[in-house]
């Protein structure tokens, strides 16, 4: 028996050594390409963002590769599905870093993904560059964690200030249970209360729910002056709008940039009319932005169905920012790339001017907009 067991152990160890050696040889082999990892939601409701943004990233990569790549090497991007959750994103980051050996990751997109992947990127000294996560918690997520999408802290406080200026004292809040939506609604609630407002009802719904009638019943029953909705995806937002109207709510509505996506504006035109939202400052008519959006539409058709176009632009820019960083370093070295990223000032991109602060957050403003007849306009109090 003993010899059998020993033989077995030796066998297992031998196999393990062979596999390990194979992995090491495979990894150290210079494949002549630069690998970049990417974590985005490619399934689930948030795939409504992930899939178009994946195309935006691919467009940038194809352009770079057709112009000779980075430092003479072609870029290979490896997409992993973060499913909009921290858990999936952290396994995706593990896989990208340990199996694919990437030094740079584009993503996550949902704040939950970025927050889930951040500790792993941080401990492996891998750059995590998010083009779309807004949670204020990401500001302190790590030294290797960057984003060119603004923290939503200012989104929540702008809405709170506006509501108080309008004389709304009692606001009911309905938010989705995701890292992003919870963080934004928390900022709003703290700010609103500090300005003397009262949160009449604080309700939430999970991302796989589609029936919010009882939450809405609770909110309406407290007779609020206004309602603040913080969804993560347009499909949930549409259902909230529908159920609000069916249950008879007709008062003022505050929300986030998800209302600015074409899907919501078209399919829920009447329900969203008059809603006030906070959106990252973005001018789609700026020549550079317009050229990019036209190029993207020409290549893939209309993509900005579910999401505001600013995300498409930040994602495209992010790929170029990483390219410039790698080029300026002369190799894919995370510490050098990190230093380069911190030095970015007034970089002109398709999403506007970008300056990164010492937390790796962009200096980017949120502005208030109002929905009128299916269009998003400047909002003046």
């Amino acid at each position, binding site marked *: 028996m003993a010899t059998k067991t020993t033989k077995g152990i030796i066998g297992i160890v031998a196999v393990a050594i062979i596999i390990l050696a194979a992995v090491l040889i495979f990894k150290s082999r210079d494949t002549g390409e630069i690998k970049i990892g990417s974590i985005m939601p490619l*399934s*689930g*409701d*948030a*795939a*409504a963002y*992930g*899939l178009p943004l994946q195309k935006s990233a691919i467009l940038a990569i194809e352009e770079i590769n057709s112009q000779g790549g980075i430092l003479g090497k072609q870029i290979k991007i490896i997409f992993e599905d973060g499913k909009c959750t921290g858990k999936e994103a952290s396994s995706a980051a593990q896989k990208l870093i340990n199996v694919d050996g990437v030094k740079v990751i584009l993503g996550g997109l949902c704040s939950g993904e970025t927050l889930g992947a951040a500790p792993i990127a941080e401990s492996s000294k891998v750059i995590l560059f998010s083009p779309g996560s807004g949670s204020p918690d990401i500001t302190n997520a790590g030294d290797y964690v960057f984003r060119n999408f603004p923290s939503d802290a200012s989104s929540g406080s702008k809405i709170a200030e506006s509501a108080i200026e309008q004389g709304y004292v009692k606001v009911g809040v309905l938010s989705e*249970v995701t890292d992003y939506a919870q963080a934004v609604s928390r900022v709003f609630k703290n700010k609103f209360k500090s300005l003397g407002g009262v949160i009449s009802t*604080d*309700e*939430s*719904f*999970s991302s*796989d*729910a*589609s*029936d919010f*009638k*009882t*939450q809405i*019943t*609770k909110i309406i*029953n407290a007779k609020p002056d206004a309602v603040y909705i913080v969804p993560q995806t*347009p*499909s949930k937002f*549409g*259902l909230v*709008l*529908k159920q609000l*109207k*069916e*249950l*008879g709510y007709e008062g003022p509505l505050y929300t986030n940039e998800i209302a600015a996506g074409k*899907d*919501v504006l078209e*399919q*829920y035109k*009447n*329900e969203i009319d008059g809603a006030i939202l906070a959106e990252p400052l973005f001018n789609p008519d700026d020549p550079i932005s317009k050229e990019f959006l036209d190029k993207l539409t020409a290549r893939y058709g209309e993509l900005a*169905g*579910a999401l505001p176009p600013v995300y498409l632009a930040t994602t495209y820019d992010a790929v170029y920012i990483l390219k410039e960083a790698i080029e300026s370093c002369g190799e894919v070295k995370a510490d050098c790339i990190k230093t380069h990223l911190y030095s970015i000032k007034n970089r002109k991109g398709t999403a506007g001017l970008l300056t990164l602060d010492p937390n790796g957050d962009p200096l980017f403003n949120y502005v208030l907009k109002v929905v009128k007849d299916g269009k998003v306009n400047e909002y003046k109090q």
Partner: protein
Amino acid sequence: MVLLQLLVNGIIAGAIYALMASSFSLIYNIIKFMDLSPGALFVVSAFSAYAFNILFGLNFLVSLILALIIVSILAILINKIVYKPLRNKNASNFILFLASFGVFLFITALILLIFGAEVRTFGLPITRGYEISGAIITKTQILLIVISLVLFLLLQLFMKTTKLGKAMRAIADDKQIASTLGINVEKTIAITFVISSLLTGIAGILVALEQNPEHTMGLSVILKGLTASIIGGIGNVPAALVGGFLIGIIENIGIWFLPSGYKDAIAFVILILFLLFRPKGLFGVKTREEASG
């Protein structure tokens, strides 16, 4: 009246759970394993009806019928390609359960691939619901409840009075004896899958009208439908109906008192309590072996 509104909200949710639970119970009854593929058929039906009605511009009723034909064919195919070979190899119920989960994931992913994740609606006008002594309910929601109850009654009638229904019950009791009595077991199983798929299919379309077609819509009805059928007493179709409405009502009244984040938790706490203290469900009967042993 807030309580009445909560009750109405609960009944609407319950009608969906009840339909799904009947579908699960029906299949469990006859092949004795928890088949998750109805979750996939639910999604397929919603998206087929959407595609015919909105993308191809067909009349709604025609779209509904075409969608139901598609899910019935799919149900027969799933049984034939996946379950029957496994049954012939005497695969355990656990293997069949896993296979059905695989079917569910595969079909859901396929729907995402074909339709993408954007917002889709049937474009029905959104209006304030009717107010009945303080509780608000819309036309679609009333339709949902009525159809759910009518389908249930039809199913009962079918099981009790038709030859096929009796054959199904005979197989549920004992497959071997049913077979010796000259009942075509495989054919009856296939028909059961079709009937279950019709229930699921109609539920899928109704829910899509009310809550839009989404490729993710299958999972929550699987969880709630299974919970309802277990609470009612697994394999007992009428009890599944009661289980469905019970869960719908309890979770909606429950979150009036608790933060709404606990909505799903309420349903699953009930499930755990039932599994611990009343594993046979509300109306569970002893199986033949237990009764004799």
